[in-house]
């Protein structure tokens, strides 16, 4: 076997082992990592390099297990950073709120956004269940101007939306919930710097 073929075999075996070790990641992420490491090895060993050079390059990267372990650690940290769970986001925002004014503002805006969104969504749904007792009632007089979002109880004033409350409430509520979630996620990504990952 030629030196070049031998090097190729060593490299392929290394990358295959690395790919196996990265099976916990998504295929896209794992393949991206393997291709980047392949490019690195090719760049360092361009041409007909002796197999010792290839071995030294692989040694500098660490064993496939060590290298994969470092990537897996980063992946865990990444998941913690961008977990797609509103509960996680809200918990993170709460922790952030206890640490800085900016965190407190983002947390309060998020709470208001979630409450408004959920309220509108529930109101839209309740209109379907109890149409006569649910609505947005406008109370207008010389001294008073009020909008009552209510379901049940004694309604007063003029029902402004009627059946339109169903699509508007559901749609606006859902959009507000999604926007609030994305706002929280964006704020955490952009402004919050937890120390945990920096020290890992």
């Amino acid at each position, binding site marked *: 076997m030629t030196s070049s073929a031998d090097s190729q075999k060593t490299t392929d075996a290394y990358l295959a082992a690395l790919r196996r070790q990265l099976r916990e990641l998504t295929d896209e992420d794992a393949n991206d990592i393997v291709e980047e490491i392949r490019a690195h090895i090719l760049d*360092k060993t361009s041409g007909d390099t002796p197999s010792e050079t290839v071995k030294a390059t692989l040694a500098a990267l660490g064993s496939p297990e060590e290298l994969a372990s470092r990537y897996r650690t980063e992946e865990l*940290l990444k998941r913690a950073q961008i977990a797609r769970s509103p509960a996680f986001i809200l918990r993170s925002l709460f922790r952030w709120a206890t640490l800085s004014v900016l965190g407190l503002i983002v947390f309060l805006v998020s709470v208001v956004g979630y409450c408004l969104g959920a309220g509108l969504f529930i109101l839209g749904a309740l209109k379907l269940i109890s149409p006569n007792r649910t609505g947005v009632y406008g109370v207008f007089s010389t001294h008073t101007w009020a909008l009552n979002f209510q379901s049940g109880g004694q309604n007063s004033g003029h029902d402004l939306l009627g059946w339109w409350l169903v699509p508007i409430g559901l749609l606006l509520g859902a959009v507000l919930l999604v926007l609030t979630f994305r706002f929280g996620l964006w704020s955490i990504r952009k402004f919050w710097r937890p120390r945990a990952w920096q020290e890992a």
Partner: protein
Amino acid sequence: MKDPAPPAPDAAEKWEVQLRRGSLELAILAALWDGRLYGLEILRHLESNSDLIVVEGTAYPLLTRLRSLGLVESEWVESESGHPRKYYRLTPAGRQRALEMARIWARFSGSMTQLLTPLSKEVNNKNEAGRRIGTP
């Protein structure tokens, strides 16, 4: 009788490793300040422009982390060498982070230099030790 265990790495060397590791993120962001580079270019840039000895197996996962955090973005680009390379560039958030970190670094190293003044004469007499202290 068994041979005595090899001596543990010097505490100062351990500290140096921690110091280098802690500086690596800023060093990578700084390396990308002037434009996009691929992984090996970043490593070579760090080696030729600094005293940092970067372990390759550490740098690539760190680049992945920086990308996840939105501080750098990456793209695959076909190269003349026959294989594609993954290039990294700073995002606006990455530029902002680099500036903030550089400011903190300047302030910190300035105060440390001042604090180390009494030691400087002795340190300068020992070049090797002088590199370890890392006066800027």
